[in-house]
Structure formats: C-alpha cells, structure tokens
C-alpha cells in the first residue's frame, strides 16, 4: 500500500484549526483501538517471562518486573517444541515450493495459450477454490491412510500441493502484464517454449510469485484441522497441533502455556514483519476480483 491517495476530506498542510482538531481526535481513537488490538499478543509474550506470583497480579504488568526464563526452559525440556517448529517449517517450505511451481506453470499456460478445453480446465480449477477444504478432507484422509502416509510430512503435504487462488493470480497477471509480442518475438528467433517460459516469463513474474509464496507459506504455517487429523504421534505434530494439545493436556500452568505460545508466535510475527508488503498486497489483490 505504497501510494497514499488524498481523500477529499483530507487536511493538507494548510488545514484549518477545526480540521486539525478533528484529525487529532481521529488519531487518538485509532491509536487506542490499535493498542487494544495488539494487547492480547503483548500480554502473551509478557506472561511468558513472568513468575507464578506476578502472573496473578492486577493490573497485569506489561514489562515483567522480575523477568525469568524458567517458563521457556521448562517448556523446551518438556515438549518437543523445536521439533514441532521444524516439522511446520519443512511442511510450509515444501508446500510453498509446490504451490508456486504449479501456479507459475499453469497460470502461464492458462493465460497465454488457446486450445480447446482451456476454459473448462480453468473453470474447474476456479470452482474448487470456492469449496472449503473441510468438505472433502475426510475422503482425502482415507486416501492418505491407504497410502500409509499418516503421521508423515508427505501425508501433510498432500493436502497442500495446489492453490486455486495462486493459479488465478498468476493467470490474471500474465494476461495483464506480459505482452504477447515478447513471446512471439522469442518464438520467431527460434526459442523453445520451455526456454521462453523459464528465461523470459518467470523473471517477469517475480513480483506476483513472491506474493504468492508468502500467502502459501502462511497458509500451511497456520494450518490446523488437516494436520490435526493426519498426525497422531508427538513427533509428527505441527506447531499448531502440538500447542493445541499441550494446552488441553496440561493442568493450567499459565506461565508455561504462555511461554510455549510466545515461542510459537514469534516466527510468524517476524516473517510477517519481513514480508509485510508482499503479504498485504496478496491479501488485497485477493479481494479485488472482477
């Protein structure tokens, strides 16, 4: 969201006093609201460093008075949290690679080639985008079971190999931003189709492919229901599943629960901070369909 257009009611540098007061009031309202939105997450991270006594205090402190690492060390000793983070990371990376590859190739072909049936293929891919995963996950689970892939990375991955929105995104981009003339010129020069795709088209698609990679990564990083039914051993859990079962399986030890949750939260916040622009663009463009 780099271009900030002026709204009609926007007060410029020469704003009147009344407008300036109004703007100040709006700023205050928004800042208070934004802090309230962030507060649950801030408390979660802060609670992770508190002693049992401090956790019970009112009002809750935002910066722990006697910060302790004990919650974090005991959680790491008690649960395979790092293993879960590793599982999730591998799952997310492989899923991202699969989704980016299939979307780049299919999006390009569906956007630039005309042959009988091309619209039907695209229509069917798009139609499955509407159907929620939860509708067909049980037959998919049965398939994974038959292949003997329960409790495995491959079993997880089977649910997250393609993304209809990804194909749609790349196709729209290819149609709008990659000129036919460029491809035709390369053909006349005798370039092969795969050379054209890899050397000319892919470099031009770097922007939308980056956006898609971020979306795909977050999708599997935060997946819950599918990993929940596919994994049943402690070693095979993803982060979300391990954490969810940890919090129901343990008697309430708030410090340790918060420590585990904070450790799980940090990678996604860091990743979001790095990829903010790509991610926001991706989400925004998903809402801009014709």
């Amino acid at each position, binding site marked *: *969201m780099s271009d900030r257009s*002026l*709204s*009609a*009611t*926007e007060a410029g540098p020469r704003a009147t006093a009344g407008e300036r007061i109004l*703007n100040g009031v709006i*700023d205050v*309202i928004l800042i208070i609201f934004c802090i309230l*939105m*962030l507060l*649950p997450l801030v*408390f979660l991270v802060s609670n992770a460093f508190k002693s049992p006594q401090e956790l*019970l205090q*009112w*009002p809750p402190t935002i910066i722990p008075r006697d910060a302790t690492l004990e919650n974090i060390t005991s959680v790491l000793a008690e649960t395979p949290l790092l293993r879960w983070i590793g599982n999730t990371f591998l799952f997310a990376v492989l899923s991202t690679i699969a989704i980016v590859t*299939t979307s780049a*190739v*299919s999006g390009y*072909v*569906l956007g*630039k*080639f*005309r*042959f009988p049936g091309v619209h039907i*293929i695209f229509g069917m891919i798009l139609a*499955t985008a509407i*159907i929620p*995963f*939860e*509708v*067909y*996950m*049980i*037959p*998919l689970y*049965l*398939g994974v079971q038959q292949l003997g892939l329960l409790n495995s990375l491959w079993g997880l991955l089977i649910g997250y190999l393609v993304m209809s929105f990804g194909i749609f995104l790349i196709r729209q981009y290819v*149609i709008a931003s990659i000129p*036919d003339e460029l491809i035709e010129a390369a053909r006349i020069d005798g370039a092969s*189709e795969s050379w054209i795709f890899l050397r000319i088209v892919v470099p031009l698609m770097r922007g939308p492919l980056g956006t898609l990679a971020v979306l795909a990564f977050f999708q599997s990083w935060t997946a819950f*229901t599918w990993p*929940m*039914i596919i994994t049943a051993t402690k070693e095979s859990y993803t982060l979300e599943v391990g*954490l*969810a079962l940890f*919090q*129901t399986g343990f008697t*309430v030890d*708030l410090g340790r629960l*918060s420590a*585990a*949750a904070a450790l*799980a*939260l940090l990678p*996604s916040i860091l990743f979001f901070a790095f990829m903010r622009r790509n991610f*926001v663009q991706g*989400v*925004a463009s998903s*809402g801009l369909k014709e």
Partner: protein
Amino acid sequence: MRELVGTWNRKGFTFAILALLPALIIYTLVRFIPIIETLRLSLFQWNLISRRKPFIGLDNFRELVTDALFLEALRNTTIIAFGVLAITVPLGLVLAALIHHRTRSRFAGFYETSIFIPHVVSLVPAAMAWKWIFDARLGPLNTLLGFFGLPPQAWLFDPVLAIICVIVLCSWQALGYAVLIFLVGFKNIPQSLYEAARLDGASALQCFRHISIPQLKPVLLYVSVITLIAAFNIYAQVFVLASDSQGAPGRLVRVLVLDMLENSFRNYRVGYAAAEAVILLAIVLALTAIQFRVFREKGRA
C-alpha cells in the same frame, strides 16, 4: 484478447499440455476425486473399517434433520458466523474510513499493521492469549468487571458466554482482513465524486452515507460473504477456547467441523459425516450464489 497461438503450431500445443499435466493430475487426485467421493459417501452407511458399505440413499440426510447434536452444531455455527459478521463489517468499515481519512498521518503504517497482525499470526497461540483473558479465576476480564462492581463470569464454561467469547476471538482475527479490503475499496472511489459533493456543501457524514457506502457496496458484499464462509468452517478457535469441564476440547461449543470429525473418527460413521460435509458445501454454495447474483444485477444496472 488476441489469439496468441491462434495459428497454433504443434510444438506450442505439446508444451501447453505437458506443462499443465502435473497440476491437472494433482487436482484430480487431491480435489476432484475427494469432492466426488464426499458426495458419493453421503449416500452410504460405512463404519470406516468394514468391507460392507450398503447404499442407503438419502437416509443419512433424513437422520441429520432430527439429530440433536448436529442441529446444535448447525445453530451454533450459524450464530457465530452472523455474530462475527455483525461485528466485523460495520466496525471494519468505520475503521477503514478513519484510517483512509488519516492516510497522511505519520501513524498510518502503524494503524494498518496493528489491525492486520491478528489476522496473520498463528491461530492457536493467539487463541491461547484470549483464553487467558477470559479465564474465570486468573483472567484480567473478570478482574476488570470486579472494578465496576460486576460479578465474575464463567466465560468459557457457560455455553452462551462461550459462544460470545468465540465470536469476539473470531472478530478480532477477521477484522484486519475486512479493514484491508475496505481500504482498497476506499482508494478506488473516484475523488471527483467527493469534490462535486463538497462544492454542493455536503458534510463529511453525508459524503460517507451517500457516496462511500453505495460505491463500496460490492466490496461490502464480498467481505460479508468471505467472512461468513470462513466462519462456517471454524474449528481451531473453539478447539482451543471451549474445552468442557473435563478438558475435552471444543465440546462446549459444538460446531459443524467438530461434529463431522466426531462422527467419522469417534462414532465411525463416515457416510453420515460426509452427509454433513455436503450440507456445509450447500451452505457455502448458496452464499456464493447470492454474491454472484448481486454482482450480476449491479453489472446490469
């Protein structure tokens, strides 16, 4: 659009087919076949293990209509979905309007980011943060109520209050998406409309009511439908928030996905669970149809 391979050479065609093949095979195996299998299984009675799988027609659906647990799940899910909608859309619209008005504020980046972060952070840890807030004994919410002389509430143990907690958590998450899409919508409204209205002496509120809202109608509809669809698949949030007194996850607020999973993996009634999945599909398709219909009407007008 021009016919790029209108003069199509065989080489181009071969490339296209070969390039599409992997995706088509994956789609067939992990989407088309499982979707058809769901529709098929819903007509059978099957216990997950037995070789026998008798065809029973629409019996599963007939039974669902009188199944108290399923009806409870359907009711809860509907209440949650519309609850989230009722909070997210109006609040998201107002916030987006305020942020758009202050796009030149030095805090603009902070506004967008902090409202959006709950939408992208891992769901389970975020839900755990809220679980602490709602906690009956340790939670800050009850202490806060105490300051106002109000009695503490068993937020996560009372079925009605627990649904409210789920709605709050889901709205907190969904808000960022709504605000972002509304902001894009605001940016796409032609400025000339506002300028003309200002010349006629319209107030900011009048501009919002008579220009912004009508211009944003398609975006409003899109966000509403997406929010509803997402809420109908809700599961992780209730799994974390609503444990019952024995610590069994999610039983207190029964939702559709939970009921489906229990029927297939605890009661071994896969056909029955598939029938539930078909009903979920029907709900989602109906919502999507409404959306398309309104868009088409707008296109014609």
